[in-house]
C-alpha cells in the first residue's frame, strides 16, 4: 500500500517500467509523425535554392513575419487583456452581454475577415464612399486613405479574430485569482492590475499569446489576400512556383524553429513561477459597480473588439445576403454544415482526450524530457495547414501501407486504404494541428492546480488513474470544456487541410465557401460563410454559460 502510494513521490519512474509514460510516448510519436514527415521532406536536396533565397527574398520574409507577429501580438494583447480585466473588475451596463460577446470573433475565420474588411474599407466600400460623398472627392488620386491590404491591416484583422484565445484564458485566470490576494493588494495600496492580476495571470496570457503567434506564423489566407510576403507566403512561392517542396519544407522548418524558440522562452519563464493556492475554493474578486463616463469607458473597451472582430465582418456578409448576391440555402450546403459539425465534434473529442492524457501524465507521471517531447508534439499548430497536410498524407500513406499488410495477413481483408479513404486523414490532421489548443488549455489549467491535491489522493491510497479521474478531471472540467470548444470552433473554420485530405464529394462549410472565395467571389458564398460563423457562435455561448456556472460556484 505504502509502496504504491509513494511510487510517484520517490521518482523511480525511469528505473521502472512506467506504463503511463510509455503510453504517452507512443501517443506523442503518432502526433509527431506528420511533423517528422515534413522534416524528412526538408532534409532532401533543395538544389542550391537557399543562395538565391538569401540573396533575394529571405530577409524580407523574415522581417515581414516578425513585424506581423509584433503587430498581431500588440492588437490581440490590447484587445484580449484589457477587455478581460474590465469585465472581471468592473460592473457596468451591458457587461453580462459583452462578457460572452467578446468570444464571438473566435468564430470568424481569418480568410473571411480579410475579405470582408477589404470590401468594407476599399475605394468602393461604404467607408470611402461616404467620405467621398462628404468631401466631394472623385477618384482615388484625389485623397489619401489607409490601405487595408497592408501590414497594418493584416495585423488588425488577424489580431481581431485571434484575441479571444487571450481573452478567454486571461479572464479565467483573473477569475481564479483569489480575492484575498486583491484585498492584500488594496491594503498595501498597490495597483491591482499591474502588481497582482497581471503577474498572476501571466501563464494564461502567455499560453494564449503562444497560440495566437503560432496561428499568425502559419496563416496563409490573410497574408495571401493582403499580399504580405511572410515566411508562409514564401513557402508557397518556393513550393508551387519553383516546384521545390524540399526548399519549401526547409522554410517551414525555419518557421517552426521560431516557434520552438518562443515556446522555450515561455517554458523557462513559467518554470520560475508556480503558484499554488491551497484554499479549497478560491473566491473571485467582486466586480465594482461603475456609472457615468467610467461605465461608458468600460463599455467602449469591451465593445470595440466585438465590433472590429465580429460586427463588421458579419455585417458585410449579411449585406451580401440581403442584396441577394449569395446562392440560396440548398441541400449541398446543409450537407456541408452537417459534415462540418460531425468532423469538428469528433476532432474536439479526440483532442481533449489525447491532450488531457498527455498533460496529466506529463505533470504527474514523467520526467522533464518526456514533458518536453509532449510539448513539441503539440507544435503542429505552427506549420501552415497545407504543409502539415502534406506531412499527414505522406505519413498516412506509409501507415496505410502497414495497416493494409497487417489486415490482409491477420484478417484476410483486402481493403487497402484505411486512412486515405474516408475522413480518417482529415481527423488525424486536425488532431495533430489542434493538439496545441487542447494541450494549452490543459496545461494552463494544471498550472493552477496544486500538485498537493494529487499527492494527497495518492497518499490516501488511490492509484494514479483513479486520482486523475476523481480529483484532477473534475477540477479541470472547465479547462477541458473550454479547450474542447476552442478546438471545435477551430475545426469548423479549418480550411487547407480539410480541402486537401477530404474524400470525394465531401464538403465542409469552409471548403464549400473556398471554391468561391478562391476567386474573390465570396459574395456568392456569403450565406454558407455566415453559417460557419453562426455555428461557431453556438459553442461559444455554451462555453460561456459553463464558465459562468463555474465561477458562481
Amino acid at each position, binding site marked *: 500500500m505504502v509502496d504504491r502510494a509513494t511510487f510517484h513521490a520517490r521518482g523511480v519512474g525511469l528505473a521502472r517500467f512506467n506504463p503511463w509514460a510509455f*503510453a504517452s510516448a507512443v501517443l506523442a510519436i503518432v502526433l509527431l509523425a506528420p511533423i517528422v514527415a515534413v522534416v524528412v521532406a526538408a532534409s532532401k536536396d533543395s538544389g542550391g535554392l537557399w543562395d538565391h533565397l538569401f540573396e533575394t527574398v529571405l530577409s524580407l520574409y523574415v522581417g515581414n513575419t516578425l513585424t506581423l507577429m509584433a503587430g498581431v501580438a500588440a492588437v490581440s494583447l490590447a484587445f484580449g487583456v484589457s477587455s478581460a480585466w474590465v469585465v472581471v473588475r468592473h460592473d457596468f451596463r451591458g457587461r453580462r452581454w459583452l462578457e460572452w460577446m467578446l468570444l464571438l470573433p473566435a468564430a470568424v475565420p481569418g480568410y473571411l475577415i480579410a475579405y470582408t474588411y477589404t470590401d468594407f474599407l476599399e475605394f468602393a466600400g461604404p467607408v470611402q464612399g461616404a467620405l467621398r460623398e462628404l468631401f466631394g472627392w472623385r477618384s482615388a488620386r484625389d485623397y489619401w486613405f489607409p490601405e487595408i491590404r497592408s501590414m497594418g491591416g493584416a495585423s488588425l484583422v488577424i489580431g481581431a479574430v485571434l484575441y479571444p484565445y487571450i481573452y478567454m484564458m486571461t479572464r479565467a485566470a483573473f477569475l481564479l485569482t483569489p480575492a484575498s490576494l486583491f484585498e492584500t493588494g488594496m491594503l498595501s495600496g498597490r495597483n491591482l492590475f499591474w502588481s497582482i492580476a497581471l503577474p498572476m495571470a501571466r501563464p494564461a496570457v502567455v499560453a494564449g499569446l503562444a497560440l495566437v503567434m503560432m496561428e499568425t506564423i502559419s496563416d496563409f489566407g490573410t497574408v495571401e489576400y493582403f499580399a504580405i510576403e511572410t515566411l508562409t507566403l514564401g513557402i508557397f512561392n518556393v513550393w*508551387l*512556383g519553383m516546384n521545390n517542396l524540399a526548399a519549401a519544407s526547409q522554410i517551414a522548418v525555419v518557421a517552426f524553429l521560431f516557434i520552438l524558440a518562443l515556446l522555450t522562452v515561455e517554458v523557462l519563464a513559467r518554470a520560475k513561477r508556480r503558484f499554488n493556492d491551497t484554499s479549497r475554493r478560491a473566491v473571485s474578486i467582486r466586480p465594482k459597480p461603475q456609472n457615468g463616463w467610467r461605465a461608458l469607458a468600460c463599455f467602449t473597451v469591451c465593445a470595440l473588439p466585438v465590433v472590429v472582430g465580429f460586427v463588421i465582418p458579419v455585417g458585410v456578409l449579411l449585406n451580401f445576403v440581403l442584396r441577394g448576391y449569395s446562392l440560396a440555402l440548398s441541400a449541398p450546403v446543409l450537407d456541408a454544415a452537417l459534415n462540418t459539425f460531425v468532423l469538428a465534434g469528433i476532432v474536439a473529442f479526440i483532442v481533449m482526450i489525447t491532450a488531457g492524457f498527455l498533460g496529466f501524465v506529463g505533470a504527474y507521471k514523467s520526467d522533464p524530457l518526456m514533458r518536453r517531447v509532449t510539448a513539441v508534439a503539440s507544435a503542429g499548430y505552427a506549420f501552415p495547414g497545407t504543409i502539415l*497536410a502534406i506531412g499527414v498524407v505522406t505519413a498516412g500513406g506509409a501507415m496505410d501501407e502497414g495497416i493494409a499488410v497487417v489486415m490482409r495477413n491477420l484478417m484476410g481483408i483486402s481493403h487497402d*486504404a484505411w486512412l486515405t*479513404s474516408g475522413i480518417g486523414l482529415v481527423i488525424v490532421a486536425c488532431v495533430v494541428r489542434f493538439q496545441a489548443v487542447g494541450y494549452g488549455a490543459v496545461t494552463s489549467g494544471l498550472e493552477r492546480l496544486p500538485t498537493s491535491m494529487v499527492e494527497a489522493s495518492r497518499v490516501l491510497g488511490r492509484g494514479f488513474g483513479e486520482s486523475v479521474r476523481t480529483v484532477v478531471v473534475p477540477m479541470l472540467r472547465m479547462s477541458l470544456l473550454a479547450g474542447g470548444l476552442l478546438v471545435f470552433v477551430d475545426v469548423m473554420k479549418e480550411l487547407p487541410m480539410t480541402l486537401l485530405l477530404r474524400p470525394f464529394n465531401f464538403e465542409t462549410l469552409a471548403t464549400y465557401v473556398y471554391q468561391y472565395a478562391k476567386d474573390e467571389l465570396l459574395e456568392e458564398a456569403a450565406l454558407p460563410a455566415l453559417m460557419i460563423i453562426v455555428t461557431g457562435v453556438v459553442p461559444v455561448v455554451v462555453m460561456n454559460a459553463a464558465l459562468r456556472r463555474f465561477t458562481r460556484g
Partner: protein
Amino acid sequence: MRTLFNGTAKRSTSVALFLATVSTATLALAEAKAAEVLNIYSHRQPFLIKPFIDAYTAKTGTEVNIVFASKGLAQRLEAEGTRSPADIVLTVDIARLSVYADRDLLAPVRSEILEKNIPAHLRAPDGRWFAFSKRARVLAVSKEAPDARKISRYEDLADPKWEGRICSRPGSHVYNRALIASFLHASGAEKTEAWAKGVVANLARRPQGNDRAQVKAIHEGVCDIAIINSYYYGALKHSDKPDQREWAKAIELVFPNQDDRGTHVNISGGGVAKHSKNKAEAIRFLEFLTSEPAQQLYGSINFEYPVNPAVPILSELRSWGAFSEDKMPIGRISELAADAQKIIDRVRW
C-alpha cells in the same frame, strides 16, 4: 497496482471501440462506391466543373466523383501510390499539370480523338497531359486613357512613360509566372529581367488582389493599364452584380504582340492518373471534354477559348476581338517556371 491496470484497460477498451467505429465508417464509405465510377482530382472549382460532369453522366450514366483542392493534390496522389482511387487529374494551368507529369503520376495516353481535337503544341508529346481550354493573358486598358489604348506589346509595359499607371496581381501568381516564362522563352533571361524590373517600376500600387481587382482598380482610377486573364472580362461584363458590370464598362481589352509572337495563352488541362483502375473510362471522359458540346461549355460557363479548332468560338468571345496566340510549346512554360520565379523574387513583383 490492480487499480492502475484496471483504469488502463477500461480506457483502452473505449479507445479501441472508438477506433473500430471510425474504421468501420471509413470502410463503409469506401464500399459504397459502385462499379461504373470515375474519380477526379481537380484544381478547378466544383461549381465550374459540375456542368461538364452532369452532361457526361447524362450521356454515359457514369457516376463522377470529385475532390477539389488548389494545392498539394500531386503530393496526395504520390503518397497514395498504387492505392489511389483517382482516375483523372484536372488543373487550371500548365505548370501544375506538368508537375504531375514530372513526378510520373500520369499515364501516357494514345487516343486518336484527343490527337485530332487538340493541336500538337497544346498537349504532351507522350500523351501524359492535354489542354482542354485556353485563356489569353491580355491587357485591360482604361477607356478614359486614350494614350494607354495604343499599347500593343507586353514589352511596352516596361516603358517609363507608364510610370504609376499599371496594376497587377503579385508576380508569383501562376498566371504572371507563366507570362514571364513565355517572355523568357521569347527573349532570354537578361531581357526578361530588365523588362520585369521596368514593369515593377511602373506599378501604381503594390501588387495585390486577383485579376478582377485589377479591373476594379482601373474603374476606380488607381491605374490605366492592367494585366488580366481574358475570361475575367467576360465574368465581370455578365456579372449579376451591377457594380461589377460597371467595372467592365471602364475597360477594353488589348491582345498584345499581334505583329510578332502573339498573345500569351495558358490552358486548363488534365490527364489520366497513372494508377487509375479505370483508364478506358478516364480516356473517354477526356475525349468528351474535347467534343463540341463540352468545348462550347468552357466558353459559356467561364468565357474560355476552345482548344478544338473545329469548334466555333462563342460569339461573345469573338466580339472581344480575334487574335493570334503565342504558339510556343505550352509545356516549355513549366520548364521555365522556376527561373521565372527567381526573376520575380529579384525584381520583387
